[in-house]
């Protein structure tokens, strides 16, 4: 009954534009308010807490980095990596392979070592992210949901996720990409700080625009 009423009236409850960063809390954290996402249409009926607003705002900046070519090129949704600031398909027809490291004779490690060498980029454990970590085409909320899901994020809890974002050498490569490649728009330190803020304020998944 209540659900039916809400479903009829929810357009009247639309939040002002300033509330459009309404965010659903993570199931894997202990957020201050346990909104039941399935029962409430996105953008309506629940007033976000200040922490939720902060968390959503922090994640939107994190998402800008995750969508940068330095990250997204090797987090593709398809069968091949991309390269360069224009995100062209990787030259030589490189493909993912069964273990995300390419195929016999054309492994990632055939060309990429653990450091940049002139124009050839390199960093420790250079490889494609597995398909469970594909980020292409995801909304902010879907990106956040993906990052928080141990089944998709390599069995990481949020602290391990932070450690990966802040300290992993392949992640850090994005800010030292070599050649003429552009780094993400904010510094690695600021990126790590925003990830920390997102987690500490509930790791919410920002809904809406």
């Amino acid at each position, binding site marked *: 009954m209540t659900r039916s009423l809400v479903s009829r009236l929810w357009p009247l409850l639309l939040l002002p534009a300033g509330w459009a960063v309404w965010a659903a809390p993570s199931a894997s954290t202990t957020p201050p308010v346990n909104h039941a996402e399935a029962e409430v249409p996105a953008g309506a009926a629940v007033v976000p807490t200040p922490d939720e607003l902060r968390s959503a705002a922090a994640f939107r900046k994190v998402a800008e980095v995750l969508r940068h070519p330095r990250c997204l090129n090797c987090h593709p949704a398809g069968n091949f990596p991309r390269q360069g600031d224009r995100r062209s398909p990787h030259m030589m*027809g490189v493909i993912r392979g069964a273990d995300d490291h390419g195929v*016999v*004779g*054309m492994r990632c490690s*055939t*060309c*990429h070592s653990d450091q940049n*060498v002139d124009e*050839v980029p390199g960093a420790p454990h250079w490889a494609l992210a597995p398909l469970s970590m594909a980020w292409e085409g995801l909304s902010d909320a879907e990106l956040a949901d993906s990052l928080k899901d141990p089944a998709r994020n390599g069995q990481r809890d949020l602290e391990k996720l932070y450690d990966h974002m802040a300290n992993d050498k392949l992640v850090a490569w994005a800010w030292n990409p070599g050649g003429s490649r552009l780094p993400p728009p904010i510094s690695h330190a600021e990126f790590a700080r925003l990830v920390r803020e997102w987690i500490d304020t509930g790791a919410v998944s920002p809904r809406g625009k």
Partner: protein
Amino acid sequence: MEIKLQVNDEELRVDVDPATPLLWVLREELGLTGTKYGCGRAQCGACTVHVGGEAVRSCSYPVRKVAGQKITTIEFLDQSVVGRAVEQAWLELDVVQCGWCQPGQCMSAADLLSKVPAPSDGDIDLAMRGNLCRCGTYPRIRAAIHRAAELLRDTAGRS
């Protein structure tokens, strides 16, 4: 900085900047000029050698990274069963035209055959697409890899 290398079954020491690409150590320090410089950007495959049993582009590998690992160059390819089959097939089918890319082609072919003894055309195309040949010898390369696979089967049948 002194770095220990194991090249073609020989223990060697070189005194170089550890960031020097392996290619230049092989060619300039050790005189192993069979490995060719093509593009210097890991885009053509001419500089392919084996490190720890895997094909790598030596122009993009810092020598520091390969210290202590077994490095095989084209000069030593005929010391393995697979390498001998590749060389024989290349000669039988007269694959080479100008020849510049061929050391890299042979090293990549040997890498493929050591892991996929009877490769399909698709396996060959996937494995060899990083090795460019401006003379366009690709059909002969593919045929030679199939021939090398036959030779390997014959060898295995005799032993």
